[in-house]
């Protein structure tokens, strides 16, 4: 991959006083890739992106754009562009003027600017008569599109996104996520996106980097991250999962402090002695007989939540609260305070370390 890397980060570090916001990050982003960095708030992902865009100066390490070090290149000279969380549109300007801003700065004459702006507006499904509309009178989704069009008009080699969809309601966000992926395909540009939502990252990305406390803890395809989370943090970051501490017993089975019983392990990592077992809610089943799955636990239904096509149950067993999700039509038993038997197959569980 390195021969076609557009962006390479080598030991990139940013320290604010006592706080190490970004801690020796190494990363290669391929040409034309949709790369997403996921992490909780405060993990340093915004600082990382701001360094790449030229709005923060790295404390250490290097940023290489097509092999050329750009650490000290000011933002206005970098061939990259950012779509901000706040969008940072120019409120005193029209939709057209916002989109054309970078062209005006470059001295492109006004007819050519307008042609390009209208072309981008068509591509982003903005009505043509919005050209003269003050950007402050646009809706949230329209503003998103204006911000994206403004970035694309700059014709950047890499487009950065700083959680632009986080303030948008769920339904529109789902639409815009898909549109963004389509735009990525149409333009063929390299997109680098940051978000705190792994779900959002899954939908759009070619590869995902999970960030924690300034470090990239795992980089991989959505499938790799989903199926093989590297540690407890990554697995918990995927949304609701069942995670409980386990250690390897002498008989080759797993035992836990939190959950009574012993369990058949999945394939053991080398030298495994103790760690965490991860079982996704959709891998858990209600059992009629204990031998229906390799592992089973006896518990009591605490509550149930309708999630549309699926139903989620909370089942208390020992000190652990298990989350079990079933399809609506597969629902069996399970009323509040019923004693139930739940289970999973070893192959559907994952062993991770702390």
């Amino acid at each position, binding site marked *: 991959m390195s021969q076609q890397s557009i962006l390479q980060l080598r030991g990139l570090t940013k320290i604010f006083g006592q706080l190490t916001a970004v801690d020796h990050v190494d990363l290669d982003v391929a040409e034309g890739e949709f790369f997403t960095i996921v992490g909780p708030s405060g993990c340093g992902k915004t600082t990382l992106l701001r360094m790449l*865009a*030229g*709005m923060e100066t790295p404390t250490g390490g290097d940023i290489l754009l097509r092999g050329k070090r750009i650490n000290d290149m*000011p*933002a*206005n*000279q*970098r061939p*990259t*562009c*950012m779509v*901000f969380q*706040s969008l*940072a*549109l*120019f*409120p*005193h300007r029209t939709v057209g003027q916002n989109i054309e*801003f*970078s062209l*005006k*700065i*470059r001295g492109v004459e006004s007819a050519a600017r307008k042609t390009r702006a209208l072309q981008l507006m068509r591509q982003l499904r903005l009505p043509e008569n919005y050209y003269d509309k*003050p950007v*402050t009178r646009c809706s949230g989704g329209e503003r998103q599109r204006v911000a994206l069009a*403004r*970035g694309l008009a*700059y014709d950047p080699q890499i487009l950065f996104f700083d959680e632009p969809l986080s303030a948008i309601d769920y339904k529109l966000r789902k639409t815009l996520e898909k549109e963004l992926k389509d735009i990525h395909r149409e333009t063929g540009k390299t997109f680098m996106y940051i978000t705190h939502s792994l779900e959002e990252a899954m939908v759009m990305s070619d590869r995902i980097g999970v960030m924690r406390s300034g470090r990239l803890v795992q980089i991989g395809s959505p499938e790799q991250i989903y199926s093989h989370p590297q540690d407890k943090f990554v697995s918990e970051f995927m949304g609701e999962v069942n995670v409980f501490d386990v250690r390897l017993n002498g008989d080759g089975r797993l035992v836990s402090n939190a959950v009574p019983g012993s369990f058949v392990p999945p394939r053991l990592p080398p030298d495994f002695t103790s760690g965490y077992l991860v079982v996704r809610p959709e891998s858990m089943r209600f059992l009629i007989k204990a031998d229906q799955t390799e592992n089973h636990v006896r518990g009591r239904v605490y509550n149930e939540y309708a999630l549309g096509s699926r139903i989620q149950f909370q089942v208390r067993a020992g000190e652990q609260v298990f989350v079990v999700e079933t399809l609506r039509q597969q629902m069996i038993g399970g009323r509040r305070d019923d004693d139930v038997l739940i289970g999973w197959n070893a192959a559907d569980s994952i062993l991770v370390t702390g």
Partner: protein
Amino acid sequence: MNPEGLLRWFVAGRRHALPLLALLAVGFAAPLFAVIAFSFAPPRTFSPWQTPGLTNYETIFAETYYQSFAWSLALALITVIILAAICYPLAYGLAKVFGKWANAVTLVLVLPLFVSENLRLYGWILFFIKNGVLLGTLKYLFGIEPESWLFTPAMTIFGMVYVYLPFMLFPMTLGVSMVPRETVEAAADLGANRLQVFYEVELPLAMPGIIIGCLLTFVLAVGAIAEAKVIGGQSVIPIVHDIEIAFTYSQNWPLGAALAVLLMLVVGALVLVVLRRFDLDRILKRG
């Protein structure tokens, strides 16, 4: 809301507005009408209750009062321009750079204004006068004897710039702090250099504060009188000075009133033109 409720709300609203209405009636409307009425009275009379006429206005247009008007407007305009140039960097610093030091800087800027105006004006005279603190020291140390700046229009402007600085600075600081940091970063990210960021983004977005500061200082500076009289040494006579002379020395209240009405009209018209040009409402309501 039903009619009864509407009535109740209206009455309550009126009742609460009464103190302010009374203050405005006594402090603003009554004197304003008195001045307007006096401006139509015959010259050198002391009652507005007479047959109105335009004699005072004829006198004004027949004589050279236009010079005083011109001086007043010019002094005020120059004051505003100098203030804008001095205050923008300061306002930028206060809003974006100084951080926790902003309060201390503000205090340092405002503190001298707590000194009474007379003390300050006569202090300047002692400092700048021939053989005074500044020139006397220069003469004693270096044997040079430059002309004193005292009693010139430039000194008048210096005094006004000094006095009205906070009235420009604070609205302007508010204006500059209204410019979102990310908007500025976005402009730079899209290729704008420092100067382009300034006139494409920072200046237009800070404009409401800048305009309010300019209008405030302009209106105050047009009405300034002490600076021109004391440190300006009456080298030029602003219109406010003419008005004062008419009301006091020459005991011609109707003429003074007519001058005051004209001044109000001129300043009011200028302010309206500026407000219309910049459409403050729209700028303030944006977002």
